[in-house]
């Protein structure tokens, strides 16, 4: 018999799937327990309501994506290598799992201000991890908010693709995403070079 923690995990996974498929607003607790194959009692043993469950599921998604990004990056590699590898990992994950991607980037916007806050925190964490500010800036004094600008540019582009149902085309966008992430730090000339290299494979 599955343990309590396993069932909790199954509920969170189900929440990510159902929200990615139906959208946050249309998702009900009934949908989630059906997908997870658990009883309503089990659901409410673990979570107060749909919203609380979604926030926990969102944290899970963030840790998973960040975990993959960190695993894909050799910490001793130059920052540019890390950025390229990390961004490629995010894009591949999203392309392979559009439900996860929609939950992570699009539907989170429908789940209230605290979910939205988690989204921005996560995007900023990813960006700052990838773009090691000091190395990138080369002694320039850059705005404190620069990570957020880069994050906004990248997540805006991904958002538009997902909203129009083109998750599988995200890998084609990788060169542009790389440009968007790098340009606040290194400027359009150098970022265009990197974009061309990425496009050439």
């Amino acid at each position: 018999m599955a343990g309590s923690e396993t069932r909790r995990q199954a509920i969170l996974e189900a929440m990510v799937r159902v929200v990615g498929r139906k959208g946050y607003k249309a998702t009900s607790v009934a949908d989630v327990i059906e997908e997870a194959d658990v009883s309503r009692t089990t659901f409410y043993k673990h979570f107060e309501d749909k919203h609380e469950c979604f926030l926990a599921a969102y944290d899970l998604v963030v840790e998973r994506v960040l975990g993959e990004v960190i695993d894909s990056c050799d910490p001793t590699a130059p920052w540019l290598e890390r950025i390229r590898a990390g961004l490629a990992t995010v894009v591949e994950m999203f392309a392979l799992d559009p439900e996860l991607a929609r939950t992570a980037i699009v539907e989170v916007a429908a789940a209230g201000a605290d979910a939205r806050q988690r989204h921005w925190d996560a995007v900023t964490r990813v960006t700052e991890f990838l773009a090691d500010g000091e190395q990138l800036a080369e002694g320039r004094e850059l705005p404190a908010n620069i990570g957020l600008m880069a994050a906004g540019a990248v997540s805006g582009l991904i958002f538009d693709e997902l909203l129009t149902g083109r998750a599988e085309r995200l890998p084609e966008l990788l060169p542009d995403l790389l440009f968007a992430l790098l340009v606040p730090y290194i400027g359009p000339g150098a970022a265009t070079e990197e974009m061309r290299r990425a496009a050439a494979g």
Partner: protein
Amino acid sequence: MERGRGGDRWRPPRGRHRLPPQVVARSQRERLLEAAVRVVAEKGYGAMTIGDLTKQAGVSRTTFYELFDDKERCFLAAYDNAVEVLVRRVMAAYEAPGEWPERAAAGLAALLEVLAEEPELARLSLVDIGNAGPAAQRRYRAAVQRLTPLFEEGRDYAPGGRGLPANTSRMAIGGVTGLIADELVAGRAERLPDLLSDVFFATLVPYIGPDAAAREVERLTR
């Protein structure tokens, strides 16, 4: 929460009065429009009822139906109004004489001012997007389209502009949106105008790079 703007507005006296009927109707319509943005911002488009609107606006249900066919028409009229004001003010500031950085700075300053004055509209468009409903989301996207020239002109201004990715204006808009949304999520709508230098930097940087962007920020927004 008391939100002054609507509350302080002059209302026709209750009961029998001699105001021309079109004046009364106009004021009732405006109150309903304001109520619609407020109610949707609070509870979401899906949950809004006509009862919520008539109560907030202090008008009767009969009056509501004299002015609007249904709640969707009322909310979308409100949203369209607000977006129209925003786009016009931003573009009027942007279309002043001068070079791109000057005009972009003026347009962005106007954008931040309008959003600070209309925090509910700002949150509805940029943060609680799910609350707005699909029709308002389409209108938001159309409004962003109309603002795109403010960003895209950077391509003509920048020395290597033609070689930039086709998505450059979307990146700039994403950077600006990220900054504004972050401030709204933190509940600091009234401080949006202070973001001008960062928002301006985010607009310039994909076109002219961090060094030139920092110089323009220093020159035009400090």
